[in-house]
């Protein structure tokens, strides 16, 4: 009798835990579905946000991140009216992450008369290369930040190159790419990497990711390499380009 009661209580407890897990899980799915935040602010907006919160906690990420954040803070202080104590600490140098590959076996280019990455690099100090595909939602979330970067720096020796590496068959159709690029406001050069040859060459290892963005300096060295659509990633990208440009011009 006691044994049965204990068994029933155990069963009841297990059932209650399972019911709790089920309810919390369903609630999280519903909550996430109705509360999808738009976390892709433009770069200027993001830098402005940092201006009013200069005491933001330092990132524990890579040295690149720390250096870039320092630079971003520097940029932010120049737009602030209130006097800010100057620091004697020089920002960390932007590391060299390796030599950039070229883009080969392409199906062509859109939005440019150039026919190779080398041509674009020859006309610019810095080249921002992003691997993307128009059906990828995370890639789309980065386009506002890239558009801002392109608008702010295109006359200062910086070019953005979107390497379109399709994930699915319909993304390989050039007409679909042209239509999507126009719809999404992608006005910078697009390299058509239909076979994903460059997607795999640039992204060493067994898999590649969308989106992934690189910054290449005038010596063809990679100075920035990040995956994902994070607003902070694109803030860092903007700041890195700004710093590298300053270095190139000194």
């Amino acid at each position, binding site marked *: 009798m006691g044994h049965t009661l204990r068994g029933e209580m155990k069963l009841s407890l297990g059932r209650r835990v399972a*019911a709790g*897990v089920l309810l919390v899980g369903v609630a999280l*799915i519903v909550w996430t579905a109705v509360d999808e935040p738009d976390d892709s602010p433009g770069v200027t907006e993001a830098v402005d946000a940092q201006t009013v919160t200069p005491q933001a906690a330092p990132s524990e990420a*890579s040295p690149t991140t720390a250096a870039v954040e320092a630079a971003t803070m520097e940029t932010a202080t120049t737009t602030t009216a209130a006097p800010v104590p100057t620091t004697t600490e020089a920002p960390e140098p932007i590391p060299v992450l390796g030599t950039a590959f070229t883009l080969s076996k392409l199906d062509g280019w859109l939005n440019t008369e150039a026919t190779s990455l080398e041509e674009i690099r020859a006309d610019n100090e810095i080249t921002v290369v992003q691997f993307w595909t128009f059906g990828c*939602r995370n890639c789309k979330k980065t386009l506002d930040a890239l558009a801002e970067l392109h608008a702010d720096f295109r006359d200062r020796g910086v070019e953005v190159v979107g390497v379109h590496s399709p994930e699915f068959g*319909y993304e390989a159709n050039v007409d679909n790419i042209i239509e999507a690029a126009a719809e999404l406001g992608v006005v910078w050069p697009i390299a058509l990497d239909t076979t994903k040859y460059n997607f795999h060459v640039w992204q060493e290892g*067994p898999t590649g990711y969308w989106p992934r963005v690189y910054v290449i300096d005038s010596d063809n060295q990679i100075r920035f390499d990040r*995956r994902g659509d994070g607003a902070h990633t694109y803030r860092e990208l903007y700041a890195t380009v700004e710093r590298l440009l300053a270095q190139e011009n000194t």
Partner: protein
Amino acid sequence: MSTIFDTLTEGIGVITWACTLTALVPGLALVFVARQARLTVALYYTAGAAFLAWAQAAGHWWVSARGAAVVIAGFVAAGTYAAAWRAPGHSSPLATGAGLVGGALAGWLWRPCVGELLGDILNDASTAGPRTLGLMLIYMVGVLLPLLLVAVAPYAVPAIGRVLDRLPFAIAGATVGAAYAVALAIGKYDDLTGEMYRISAGY
């Protein structure tokens, strides 16, 4: 704590996305097939998927999901569904193996659209191993939450278990599993998922 919660919700937020469905749908099918060991299969599937996805980003796994390897993966996938079908209970090695190998396969084939926190996990995977592995597991729990809930539901509501135990559900799971295995083996997996996505995206 906030990072953990945000990582979980970022995973949940992409459940319906095409890049996620490629990991979720085969897992759901596997759970439907494993009538006697749904929870074991679901838990090991999640762990296997998280580990392989992390291992690739951290540089601990170097086999690309291309060419002959994918054909072999098709046969391995078929084996996981057969094992799950035959698994007699939760403690069966067949259940553990089917979940773990099936999940690892999904993690290996997974081409995620990378959001903010997943991006951080992938960017730091090679330098902050244990932390990023833990976060990847949490992200994967979010991504595969429907599968885990299907596995837990019969414990909360036995009537759901009685419905899921019916043969048509297992046959439906096995059919999806067979399509997945065949698509892999003949190199049409991307085309199949792409076509589904194209239709749903209206292109």
